C-alpha cells in the first residue's frame, strides 16, 4: 500500500508509548525564529482546561507513559502549571519542565519544586547576551535565564541546558559548554536546528555551512572526553548534512504522543503539516484509543507504508524512514524516504540546497508570532 490507508492495527502489537509531550500553551515571551510550534499557533481561549489535562495525565500513566515533558510555548504561562506538575508526581510520571526561564518561570519555580518536579530543561539562545536576545527576540531575557538556572541548581533540581544551534550562534558552541559547567548543569543538548515549522521558513537565516557543522561536532566530541562524569552532552546533528536520517520521535507512533494546547494528539510536533491526516482530540477520545486507533497514528506506524528504498532497507527499523514531515516538505510525498538519507535520490539536492543557502548572506529573521499571517518565503511546495 502506498497511500496511508489507516487501518487500526491490533492493539497487542503496538508498544506502549513512553513519552508524552504536553504542549500546555503556545503563549511564550520569546519569539525564536526556529520554534518547533506550528505556524498557526493556538490562542489562549482555545486551550484545554485544567481538569482535561489532569485526566489526560491519568490516562497517559495507565497507558504506560513514563516521561511527561511539560512544554509549550512557555509552560509556566499556565496558571495551573503547579497543579499539573503535582498530578505527575502523584501518578509517578517523570516530569520534565521545558522552559525559557523568562516571564513568570522563576516565580513559580519553588512551588514546582515542592510539587515534585523532577527535571528542568532550560533553553539558552546564545552565550553572549546581545546575541542571545537578538535570536530570542526579547530584551533582558539573558539575565532572567541566568537567575533562573542558578535557582534550579540551588534547589538541587537536575538542570539540562538546551541550545539550538544555527549559523547565528554556532561559533558559541564552546561557550555553551563552559556555560553549562558554570551553571552546574548535568546535561547539555547541542541540538542543531531541525528545519520544520518556523525553522523551515527561516532556513536561509539559520543554515550553517558544512565546515561549521563539522567543527561544532569536533568540539563536542573533545569536550565529552574532557568532561566525562561531569557533564553529559547530547548532540543532535543537522539532517541536511547527515548520512542517515533520524528516527523521528523514535519512530512514528512508537514512543511519543504530542498533545497540543487545544487537545489535538499528534505523533510528532510537526505532523500537522501533513495534509489529509486525521487527528483525534483528547476531548473526544481517550488517550489509549487515540494511540491505538486514530488514523494519524496508524498512517505511518511500522514499515508497511514504506516505498523503496526504505521498504527493503536494512535500516528500516532503525530510523523508520526518517521524518515524514521533512519528506513531505522537501520531496512532496510524506511516504517518500526522508531526503536526509543518503539513499534518497534527493539527498544530493538537499545538501546542495543547504550549501547554497549557507553561502548567502542570511536574511532577517521572521520571528514567531501568534496570529501572524506569515507566508513561507520558500515558495515552492517541495523544492527538491
Amino acid at each position, binding site marked *: 500500500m502506498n497511500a496511508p490507508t489507516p487501518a487500526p492495527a491490533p492493539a497487542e502489537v503496538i508498544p506502549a508509548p513512553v513519552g508524552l509531550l504536553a504542549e500546555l500553551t503556545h503563549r511564550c515571551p520569546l519569539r525564536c525564529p526556529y520554534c518547533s510550534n506550528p505556524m498557526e499557533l493556538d490562542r489562549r481561549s482555545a486551550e484545554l482546561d485544567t481538569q482535561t489535562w489532569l485526566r489526560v495525565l491519568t490516562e497517559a500513566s*495507565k497507558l504506560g507513559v513514563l516521561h511527561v515533558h511539560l512544554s509549550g510555548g512557555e509552560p509556566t504561562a499556565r496558571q495551573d502549571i503547579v497543579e499539573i506538575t503535582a498530578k505527575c508526581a502523584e501518578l509517578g510520571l517523570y516530569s520534565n519542565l521545558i522552559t525559557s526561564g523568562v516571564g513568570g518561570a522563576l516565580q513559580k519555580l519553588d512551588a514546582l519544586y515542592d510539587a515534585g518536579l523532577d*527535571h528542568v530543561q532550560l533553553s539558552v539562545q546564545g552565550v553572549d547576551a546581545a546575541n542571545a536576545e537578538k535570536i530570542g527576540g526579547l530584551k533582558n531575557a539573558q539575565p532572567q535565564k541566568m537567575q533562573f538556572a542558578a535557582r534550579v541548581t540551588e534547589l538541587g533540581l537536575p538542570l539540562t541546558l538546551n541550545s539550538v544551534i544555527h549559523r547565528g550562534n554556532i561559533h558559541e558552541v564552546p561557550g555553551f559548554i563552559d556555560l553549562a559547567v558554570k551553571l552546574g548543569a548535568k546535561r547539555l543538548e547541542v541540538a542543531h536546528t531541525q528545519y520544520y515549522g518556523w525553522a523551515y521558513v527561516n532556513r536561509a537565516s539559520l543554515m550553517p555551512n558544512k565546515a561549521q557543522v563539522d567543527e561544532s561536532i569536533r568540539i563536542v566530541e573533545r569536550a565529552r572526553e574532557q568532561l566525562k562524569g561531569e557533564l553529559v552532552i547530547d548532540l543532535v546533528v543537522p539532517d541536511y548534512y547527515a548520512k542517515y536520517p533520524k528516527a523521528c520521535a523514535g519512530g512514528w507512533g512508537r514512543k511519543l504522543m504530542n498533545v497540543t494546547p487545544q487537545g489535538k494528539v499528534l505523533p510528532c510536533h510537526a505532523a500537522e503539516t501533513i495534509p489529509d491526516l486525521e487527528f483525534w482530540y483528547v476531548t473526544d477520545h481517550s488517550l489509549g484509543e487515540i494511540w491505538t486507533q486514530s488514523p494519524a497514528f496508524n498512517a505511518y506506524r511500522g514499515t508497511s507504508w514504506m516505498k523503496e528504498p526504505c521498504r527493503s532497507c536494512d535500516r528500516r527499523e532503525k530510523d523508520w524512514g526518517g521524518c515524514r514531515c521533512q519528506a513531505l516538505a522537501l520531496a512532496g510525498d510524506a511516504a517518500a524516504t526522508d531526503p536526509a538519507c543518503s539513499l534518497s535520490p534527493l539527498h544530493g539536492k538537499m545538501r546542495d540546497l543547504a550549501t547554497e543557502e549557507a553561502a548567502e548572506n542570511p536574511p532577517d529573521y521572521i520571528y514567531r508570532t501568534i496570529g501572524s499571517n506569515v507566508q513561507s518565503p520558500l515558495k515552492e511546495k517541495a523544492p527538491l
Partner: protein
Amino acid sequence: MTAPFPTPVADQRLLTPEELEAALRDIGARRYHNLHPFHRLLHDGKLNKDQVRAWALNRYYYQAMIPVKDAAVLARMHDAELRRVWRQRIVDHDGDAPGDGGIERWLKLAEGVGFRRDYVLSTDGILSATKFSVEAYVHFVKEKSLLEAIASSLTEMFSPTIISERVSGMLKNYDFITKDTLAYFEKRLTQAPRDADFALDYVKQHATTPELQRQAMAALTFKCNVLWTQLDALYFAYVAPGMVPPDAWQPGEGLVEATSAAAEGKRGPFVGTDVPRLPRGVRLRFDDVRGKHVLLAPERTFDLDDNAVAVLKLVDGKRSVGDIAGELAAIYAADRSVIEADIGVMLADLAQKRVLER
C-alpha cells in the same frame, strides 16, 4: 645463508606464485615480532603496568603514522581501482568522523591503561628509536617500488595469530585491561586478513621475475625489522637494562591520576565505604504496564537487569557499598567480595552517566 625454502636467490629461478607465498610466510614464521621476548612477556602477563603503558604509548606512534604511510602508497598508484581498495586502509585507521577509526581505538587503549589523551597525542614521551623505525617505514614506501611498498604491508598476514594471543593473554593476565580497552584488536581481526589477502594477490601477480620476487621478500623482511626494532627499544628502555633515554616517557608521567587524583577517585569504581545515592531527578520505579523496574532520569529511561534492580533497591543514601554487598551476599549466598567488586563497577558506570552520586 641456508634457507629451508626455495628462494629466487638460491635457485636463480622464478618461483611459482604458491612457492612465493610459502617463502613470504616463512619470513613471518622466523622474523615476525610475535617471537620477540618483549611480546612473550606482554602476553604471558609478566610485564608490570608501567611496562604495558610504555608499549601502548610507543605503539601509538606506529598506529598514528599508518595512514601517513598508506597515503604515501596511495599517491604512487596510477590505477583508480587499486586506489579504491587501498584507501579503505586510511578510512579504517582515521574513521569517517571524529571518535571513529583505528587510531581512536588505540587512543582508547592508551587511556584505558591510564594515559591522558593529550599526552599521547603530543607524542612527547615516545622513544626516538620508535620514531626512527616508523619513519623509516614511511620513507621506504615512498622511495622503493610500488611492489615493494605493497609487499612491506604483508606482515598483516601474520597479525591475526598475534592478536588472538594478545587479547586472550592480556585479558587473562592483567586486571587493569578490559575488553573495551582492547577494542582496537577486535576490528583488526577482520580488517587485517582482508587487507593481507589483497596485498598478497597483488604481490603474487606482479612479482614476475626472480629479481622482483627477491625485492618483495626483502621488503617484507624490512617490515618485520621495523616492528622488531621497536620492541628492542622498548625492552632496552623499560625491561633490561632499563636505560630510559632522556626525554622519553618515565613511569608516572602523562597519566590521568597524576593530574587529577581527585577526579580519578570520583570516576573510579565505587569502593566498600562509598555511600551511593540517587540524586533528585532520578527515580527507580516499577512500570506496571511493562511489568518491570525502570530507572527514570532526565530525558532517559534505563532498562535494568535483575541484579541492577536488586542493588538499586538498596541504594538509599545511607547504606554503603559494603552494606549492600553484605545484604546481597546473605540473600544470594554468594561471595561478598565478588559482589562488592561487581557492584562497584556497575555503580561507577551509572555515576558516569550522571544518574548516581556518592
